């Protein structure tokens, strides 16, 4: 129970990695605020968090809307008394050929994956700075430092997350706030189901084939599980990692080695 009594906020908490992180934080004794643009999916996660004997809080929020982000943060502070741990996790992806990318595609992916990470991080850090401590963990991706055909915008947005993580970490180092990022490789999630489906449509291959092919190229020969990402999340949220800041931690079965 390395997070007893802590208050955490996870965006994109309804599914996949966000959900696994929320459940793992709860396992470690933290109260967890669950934010997602699809609130209808949160009840299930909240029930699972509640079962672990900590408090959950469901928040419907589109993190790209400043007023919604602000009320999300205020709701956590008023319900839990503050925010100790913030997972800037909400993200979107769209698989499309380079020549098909329209400005609105670029804007939407960048707004969710990078701009919201920056400004939600800024708003939460303002609060954490007053308290003299805090842990901000952004979700980047293995795609951050790789060329990703048909996912150029996503990859660029995640490179941006790695960069913002470094800069925030240095600027905030003396405030007691650490800022790090997770970089998952191929993880068995709803997002990969979407990537698989969109790639399948684009390349005319059967459902599941893209995911299987891509997984077979991982040195460990298997995709990761959301709970394996959540384990790193718990480490970065705990005092065990107090001297780590500005870093991006890869959880990728050896893919980036």
């Amino acid at each position: 129970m390395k997070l007893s009594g802590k208050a955490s906020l996870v965006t994109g908490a309804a599914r996949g990695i966000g959900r696994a992180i929320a459940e793992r934080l709860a396992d470690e004794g933290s109260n967890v605020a669950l934010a997602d643009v699809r609130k209808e999916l949160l009840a299930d996660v909240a029930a699972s968090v509640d079962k672990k004997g900590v408090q959950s809080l469901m928040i419907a929020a589109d993190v790209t809307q400043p007023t919604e982000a602000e009320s999300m943060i205020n709701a956590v502070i008023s319900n839990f008394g503050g925010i100790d741990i913030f997972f800037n996790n909400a993200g979107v992806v769209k698989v499309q050929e380079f020549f098909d990318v329209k400005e609105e595609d670029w804007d939407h992916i960048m707004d969710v994956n990078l701009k919201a990470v920056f400004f939600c991080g800024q708003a939460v850090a303002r609060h954490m700075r007053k308290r003299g401590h805090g842990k901000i963990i952004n979700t980047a991706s293995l795609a951050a430092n790789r060329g990703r055909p048909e996912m150029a915008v996503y990859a660029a947005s995640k490179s941006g997350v790695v960069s913002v993580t470094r800069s925030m970490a240095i600027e905030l180092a003396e405030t007691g706030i650490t800022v790090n990022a997770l970089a998952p490789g191929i993880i068995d999630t709803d997002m990969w189901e979407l990537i698989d489906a969109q790639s399948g449509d684009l390349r005319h291959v059967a459902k599941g084939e893209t995911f299987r092919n891509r997984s077979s190229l991982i040195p460990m020969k298997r995709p990761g599980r959301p709970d394996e990402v959540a384990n790193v999340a718990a480490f970065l949220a705990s005092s065990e990692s107090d001297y780590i800041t500005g870093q991006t931690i890869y959880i990728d079965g050896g893919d980036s080695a």
Partner: protein
Amino acid sequence: MRLKGKVAIVSGGSSGIGAAACRLFAGEKAAGIIVADINAEGGLAVASAINEAGGQATFIHLDVSDESAWRDAVATTVSTYGRLDITVNNAGLSLPEGRARIEETSLAVWDEMHAVNLTGVFLGMKHSIAPMRESGGGSLINISSIYGLVGSIGSTAYHSAKGAVRNLTKAAAIQYAPEGIRANSIHPGFADTGMTAKLHAQPGERAARIGKTPIGRMGTPEDIAWGCVYLASDESSFVTGAELVIDGGMVAQ
């Protein structure tokens, strides 16, 4: 309980980061800890403190640059505790004469620093792999340095050896991933350990290093050792070939 049932070798376990890793491993209920070092006095003290607290630890004399010593150490580990799951290749050497630029670095100093800092890691991995395979998998944890990622005004041989450790770790990760043996490197920033004690005692050195570190303090052996616990445990089951930088923001700059 994060290391319940697991057996570990920690080279350079007598002091600093290695000793902290041994203590934290014991706290996480490792089934056996081999404190391996050339410093018997310190290593025996680390092992006996763990045993007195109800843990299982044994000191072994190990010069990491000696291949037959590694063979013996691994054989003793398996005969004492029945298996091997974790090897922390932590033993390191920083000679005062090694804090020099390329032109001023003697071949003897170069060789000695590579023997411990690089060959020692190679041998540690080489002889750990077979018993890890027997255990159904394992975790190789190699202590590199932020000096394995960036350059500085001196420390030629140290940069070379630690940089090589970084990439040797990735090679090991790819080679043994199919067998469930993971390999990762840890890159400590400036820390107060036995190895840095003399340097940090020189006027201004410690303050200058803290000044370069965004978080504004030295790392402690425990700061680094918690990273070892994470990489040693099954919590990092999908992590291999990765670099864990624990440096107070030093290389993010």
